[in-house]
């Protein structure tokens, strides 16, 4: 189902054109334009209620914007359902973890792999030939590429709901990765984590983005400015549905309007050094 339509590093992977999204009289997004290039970590920052999560929901298809185009790999995808977009290689994690608590860590991750399973019910039930081979290959992928990367060997067979929050976030990331996405939307992956977990998670994001095996383009929504400025190639600043600016971390830090709207407020400038 994944399209072979390739985009080279540095080309535009996803484009938002003049996106408008309102709920009743509240205009959550008022004409957003954004270009995400392949290979980048593109962050979206903004105060609470700025419309960041709405924007993510529009990209992965949970919301349909009233106006504007969402173009992925040169193709307009406005009409596609979330699972169809997942099939194109768009994967995400959620601000508040959305794992399946009663299932084991391994099962949660396997679920993310579902879209790549080709065998049908009939061949699956006798587990022979191609199906067996396919399963071995998927198992190898999950073990070698995901569990090893995220260092969750010790919790493999534990029910996810029993795990601490930080580990649940990791499992959710693992599930998103099992899809082998080209674009990964991370909605506040660091919220609620302690310092050590933040450091681990930041390292995983970098690994996913830079490691030859992965090279995943990341769209990162995050409040932790220290991490955002360190990791991102570009930062998009959103305030009450409007774009303030889109530039490199350095440009953003120097922009007086951004500082006033966001960075200047000391309590929101939740940097950790």
């Amino acid at each position, binding site marked *: 189902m994944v399209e072979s339509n390739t985009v080279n590093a540095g080309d535009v992977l996803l484009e938002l054109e003049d996106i408008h999204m309102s709920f009743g009289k509240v205009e959550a997004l008022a004409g957003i334009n954004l270009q995400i290039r392949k290979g980048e970590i593109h962050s979206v920052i903004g105060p609470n209620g700025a419309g960041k999560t709405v924007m993510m929901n529009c990209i992965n298809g949970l919301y349909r914007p009233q106006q504007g185009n969402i173009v992925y790999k040169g193709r307009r995808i406005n009409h596609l359902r979330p699972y169809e977009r997942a099939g194109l290689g768009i994967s995400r994690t959620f601000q508040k973890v959305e794992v399946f608590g009663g299932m084991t860590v391994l099962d949660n991750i396997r679920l993310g792999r579902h879209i790549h399973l080709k065998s049908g019910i009939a061949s699956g039930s006798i587990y022979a030939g191609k199906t067996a081979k396919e399963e071995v290959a998927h198992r*190898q992928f999950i*073990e*070698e590429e995901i*569990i*090893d*990367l995220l*260092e969750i*060997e*010790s919790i*493999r067979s534990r029910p996810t709901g029993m795990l601490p929050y930080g580990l649940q976030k990791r499992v959710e990331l693992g599930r998103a990765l099992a899809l082998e996405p080209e674009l990964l939307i991370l909605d506040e992956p660091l919220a609620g984590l302690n310092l050590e977990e933040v450091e681990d998670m930041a*390292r995983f994001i970098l*690994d996913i983005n*830079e*490691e*030859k095996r992965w090279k995943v383009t990341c769209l990162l929504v995050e409040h932790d400015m220290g991490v955002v400025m360190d990791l991102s190639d570009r930062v998009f600043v959103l305030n009450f549905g409007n774009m303030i600016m889109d530039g490199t971390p350095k440009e953003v830090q120097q922009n007086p309007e951004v500082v006033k709207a966001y960075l200047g407020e000391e309590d929101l400038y939740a940097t950790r050094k």
Partner: protein
Amino acid sequence: MQHENRNFSSDIEISKDLTIPKLFYRQATRFGQDRVAMREKEFGIWRPITWHGYLENVKYIALGLIGLGLEEGDKVSMIGDNRPEGLWAEMATLCARGVGVWLFQDCLIDEVRYIIDHSDTRFLFGEGQEEVDKAISIFNECPKLQKIIWDDPKGMRNYDQDFLISLKEVKELGRELEKEKPHLFEELINKGTGDEVALLFYTSGTTALPKGALLSHNNMLTMGKHLMAVDPCLDKDDYVSYLPFAWIGEQMMSISCGLQIGYTINFPEEPETAQENIREIGPHVMFAPPRMYEQMTRSVQVKYLDATWIKRKFYEFSTYIGYKVANLKFDKKPVPVFWRLLEWLASITVQKKLKDHLGLSRVRNAYTGGAAMGPDHFRFFHALGVNLKQIYGQTEVAGISVVHRSGDIKFDTVGHPIPGTEVKIGEGGEILTRSPSVFLGYYKNPEATEKTLQDGWLYSGDKGFIDDDGHLVVFDRTKDVFTLKDGKPFAPQYLETRLKFSPYIRDSWVIGDKKDYISAVLCIDYAVVGKWADEKKLNYTSYQELSQMPEIYDLVEKQIRQANKDLPDLAKVVKFTNLYKELDADDDELTRTRKLRRAFVEKRYEEIVDALYSDNDSVHIDTTIKYEDGREAHIKTDMQIRTVKE
């Protein structure tokens, strides 16, 4: 007291000429492709490595080291988790005629710098990014260090320093060298003799900087031979290597014994999965410091508290029988048929399952050593039907010198010397040892060598005596022994291990030398006490807060009263306080093998000690703690001081 040599289980004659590489080569060619030398759990599957594979890897790493310029007697350091590559690196170093040095995986940068610099290390094997980062940060301060070798590529993509080289590249160098000089490896192996230095082993000093003990091939090999003479292992046995290689006990099991017997060494997937992996393997022999057994006891006690009524009754019934039978065996009395029947019943209903969960179902001999273990823990395992034995040893004898014999176990002793070993009590009750395994001396420290090695006798610095049955009893470190108010000597270790039998207490530190009464500083077990607090609906946010809650003080006081039972009045804990943090090796409070550094904590927590011997009921703390990566945090708190009610 010397023990006559018995029939040895291994048929290997340890001559003066034999070295570890020679033995390794002989065993590896003998077992070849048919036998599994080691197993590692990787990506969720146990993957075997045959002796042939072991030999191939060692060969190319050794030749690679030669290719990098390793010369005879050069020091090669290793740091990282237990994994095949670590053992290969060590064996390759020895084969290439270098000297191996192991560092604890969690060593802080300062410790790494000290050991690398003091040992004159030229090559360092690190596992992955973490170890490489440590090495890079000290590289400029250690002029002798030339190359850092890594094997786990994770996170290494942006490192391009030219002193870094991957294990793969080293092996490639080795392959090329083999083409040029096809017999070099065998020639190197044939060169050595048994009295050459094999390992430079840094002791975890409880008082001062670590000292480097020089151990010869002969030291290591005789050690293995003598231990295996007491409790033979079989070549089909399994052993799980999960304790740091920088600890002499692990070297003794993996190298000294493993090589002679040829049993399979199993490496866990990650340190966190060790307990689970041990259960999967079910090893036949186990050697661990008391803290591992303490941890097992604690998990059983906690699970018991959580269990349903019927399960608890079954457990109580089986432990009652277990203790009864164990006590009969301790007293060397015959076990009546009726009790044997009950023991069988207990075994099939509870003990078997319990042992399986702890990974002890196939254990023939389990050893504990490296620190004192309380009699309560000891009896606990025997009541479970585990043949747990105390050992007494130190780095300077390449492992152990004294061990319990099966069927002759007294839980307050450490048993009889192993073959080839003499033990006597010197002046002031100091334990002295003489054996072929006694080390060659300390590296670059003739003063310490002179003090420790006299006329071939090793002066241990431990106080002890030999009891009527010829068992050695280790009292405590000589300098740690207290003098009580009535002038009697007292071993703080004894009380500390008693306190630690409570599942709620993780660490204990007893004070009272030349004082009016004994007091204790305790560290609660965060997980166990935290769970207890959850059940009692107590709210807390941190270890610090939890440790200072009055309810927790009540709980701890109850544990102390239990430990105080049956002790003479002057040896009872009178006052105590809960420390606001756990004792940690990173703060220099414990050694890397988790022994309390008494002199250090006494100085560091001087205000607490003072408060325990004053009329105050609390003490104010204002301090900084440091993390493994060098960061620091500031702590301000008040610690309660409580007097134990009778």
